[in-house]
């Protein structure tokens, strides 16, 4: 896990990628308590104007949280996390989480991160999460 002396502004987090499957999204819905049919029934998703089911925003954010957690040395290090959901994620797509150190607060012993999740779709980069923020505790 990173200590204050190791962390500097603009340092990049390792990217963390996964392919989103309907099975994983369904398992997330069962575990997290969100069984909205938009995330498990293609007919419902099509009626809502999507080509098929979409991942929960919280599925995408859970993946981002895991990326931050890996870098920080575990979820207990995360003191703040914020994201806005800007674009849907479809099944079979690869979501890629990344981040960068925006500032180091030596007094409080925390790093402030900007973080994001991108997906390549039809030759373009889409940003399901574009300007996420995290604050993580650093070792002294």
């Amino acid at each position: 896990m990173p200590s204050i002396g190791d962390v500097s502004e603009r340092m990049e987090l390792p990217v963390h990628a996964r392919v989103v499957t309907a099975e994983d999204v369904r398992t997330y819905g069962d575990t997290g308590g969100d069984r909205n049919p938009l995330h498990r029934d293609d007919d419902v998703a099509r009626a809502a104007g999507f080509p098929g089911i979409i991942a929960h925003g919280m599925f995408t954010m859970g993946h981002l949280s895991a990326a931050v957690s890996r870098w920080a040395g575990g979820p207990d290090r995360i003191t703040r996390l914020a994201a806005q959901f800007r674009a849907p994620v479809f099944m079979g797509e690869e979501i890629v989480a990344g981040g960068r150190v925006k500032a180091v607060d030596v007094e409080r012993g925390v790093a402030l991160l900007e973080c994001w999740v991108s997906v390549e779709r039809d030759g373009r980069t889409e940003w399901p999460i574009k300007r996420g923020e995290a604050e993580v505790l650093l070792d002294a």
Partner: protein
Amino acid sequence: MNAAAAGKTYPGSTFVVDPRRVGAFRAVFDEDTGVPATFATAAEFSMIPEIVADPEVGIDFTRVLHGGQEYAFERPLREGESLTVESTIESIKGFGGNSILVLVTRLAEPSGVVVCTARSTLIERAAG
């Protein structure tokens, strides 16, 4: 939605940070240890049915999208602990035919010491 419901608080149910559920949640996101930060949303979801069913709010959950999410932790959640969960509707605003509800949920120790504050933005899309 009914903007007059802003400020309404839904008091204290108990939420157990169930180790089996935490383990299943960790497995989804390939995390090894601890309680994932976004697990706090499971506690938010324990409050959602009451709010959705509240005629004073008048939300149509079939038209709701999750617009954003924030967490502030005073300390991490601990597996096996019981927390009280209380939600407040911070605001309800109209925006181009959509309605935007901001829900703030506090997870606290039985003594009242807050462990985590979660803020969810829910967007109810215009009907039709």
